[in-house]
């Protein structure tokens, strides 16, 4: 990988309170170029927190430590909050899981998208509007004019998710952190959304960090896959080799999916082995 966009070394995230401490991300290191990298794992494996820690958007209670978080030559660890605000949205943007909670319920959809554009680009209202309508169209919204005027509660979940993607992609970021962007969508729409993301990544040479619990999707869509379990990266493998993964956890995740081409009576369930936890630097962490 000649062109490294993001480099993370020894990332640790801890939640500490008076009574207990929870070590949520344990010494994670990886690098992303202008490619599609998937992070898979179950809920609670620390995959979303990893994505958020990169953007320094982790909850206040979280203590983030890392050897290095470098984005395109910028040391994010040392960057001020002011600097981060200029980077977030413009250079790195984040597509979240649930449009119900991440769109402003009191603002018309069109205004939210034009706001995102005008925050990072010099444009007058008419230009921004044209750009927003074009963006809505590019995420396959059939009637962009109508959606532009609507409020988030008036659109379906799939539509809301596409609106959010339009909003996040309109500043044309270099790195997109997508946290389960398609898990609320049905297959047809999911495919459209993936195609849109794929286009942007390929056409603009952007990097994509795709957080998902859907192994098959990640195997088909991404170039490389990181498998996370209990805050650690268990495996870092090329996506096309995911189906032949050796780690028992990755195998178990693959086997528990119902499949169209294989009829089974009872699905396999995942059993966990404490030995999968790699030894990390002792810091009073409590096992998840």
């Amino acid at each position, binding site marked *: 990988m000649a062109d490294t966009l993001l480099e993370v070394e020894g990332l640790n995230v801890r939640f500490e309170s008076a009574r207990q401490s929870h070590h949520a991300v344990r010494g994670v290191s990886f690098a992303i170029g202008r490619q599609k990298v998937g992070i898979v794992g179950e809920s609670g494996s620390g995959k979303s927190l990893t994505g958020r820690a990169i953007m320094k958007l982790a909850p206040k209670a979280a203590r983030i430590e890392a050897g290095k978080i470098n984005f395109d030559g910028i040391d994010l660890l040392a960057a001020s909050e002011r600097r981060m605000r200029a980077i977030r949205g413009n250079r790195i943007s984040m597509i979240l899981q649930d449009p119900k909670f991440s769109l402003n319920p009191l603002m018309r959809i069109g205004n939210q998208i034009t706001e995102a554009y005008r925050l990072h680009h010099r444009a007058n209202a008419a230009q921004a509007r044209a750009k927003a309508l074009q963006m809505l169209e590019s995420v396959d919204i059939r009637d962009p004019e109508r959606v532009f005027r609507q409020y988030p509660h008036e659109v379906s979940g799939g539509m809301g998710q596409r609106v959010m993607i339009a909003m996040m992609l309109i500043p044309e970021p270099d790195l997109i952190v997508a946290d389960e962007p398609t898990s609320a969508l049905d*297959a047809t729409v999911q495919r459209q959304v993936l195609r849109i993301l794929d286009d942007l990544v390929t056409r603009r040479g952007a990097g994509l960090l795709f957080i998902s619990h859907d192994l098959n999707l990640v195997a088909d869509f991404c170039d490389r896959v990181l498998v996370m379990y209990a805050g650690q990266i268990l495996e870092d493998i090329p996506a096309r080799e995911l189906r032949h993964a050796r780690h028992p956890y990755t195998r178990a995740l693959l086997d528990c999916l*119902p499949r*169209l081409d294989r*009829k089974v009576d009872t699905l396999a369930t995942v059993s966990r082995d404490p030995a999968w936890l790699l030894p990390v630097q002792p810091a009073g962490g409590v096992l998840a």
Partner: protein
Amino acid sequence: MMRAGERIVETIGLRVAFGEGADARTVVDDVSFQVLAGQSFGLIGESGCGKSTLLRAIAGLNADYRGSILLQDKEIGRARDKAAYRCIQMVFQDPYACLHPRKMVQQALLEPLVIHGMDQRQDRVDDALLAVGLGPAFRYRYPHELSGGQRQRVAIARALIIEPEILLLDEPTSALDVSVQAEILNLLKTLRTQRGLTYIMVSHNLAVVAHLCNRVAVMERGRLIEEMSEDDVRHGRAREPYSRALLNANMPYHGGTAGSAA
């Protein structure tokens, strides 16, 4: 109790519209289908195609429909009696939203028993919790003390505690991890065989539908356009172009070319 193979649910010309006058939108349009007792019937379609609305109308959560809903060959009116409600229960998509955050599990489970005037309530609560693989110790938990999968188990226990014959499942596993999804699907399958339940399930995940259902209907913009067997779904055999596109969309994604076909 119905014998397997008898008609248990039927809708005739069911129509649900939202809004009035010029804004009216027909969400479920002239839907007629039958489900036999003991069957597991799947509904698939894009989001917004009306599949959840159809399910809610059958569940009695939306009385504002036209057409008829028949239960065991008798039409049930828009104002239902308790017996009709008891016969049909529903499990919702979001296990985080469907349990009252300030009620303990046992309160959530006792409430339907009180409403339907059932006896031996404490025993039934324990039995229901055991049936979904949780156990009586979970009585005293609040929803925030449960994981997503455990919450969905409680929601299933709550639906089953009044011994319904039909279970309506609205995307019961889409909010869950794949590992938990496998556990819940296994649980649903076991419960159906043990209790001879009839399922009507809505999902956009074809593999999940094919795993659980023997018959699958495709909905497009409020209409039922095609019925298929589980085998047809597995082999991508569809008559209508729309259903074919839907089946194709569930095949693996391969780069930028795949989308144009759908």
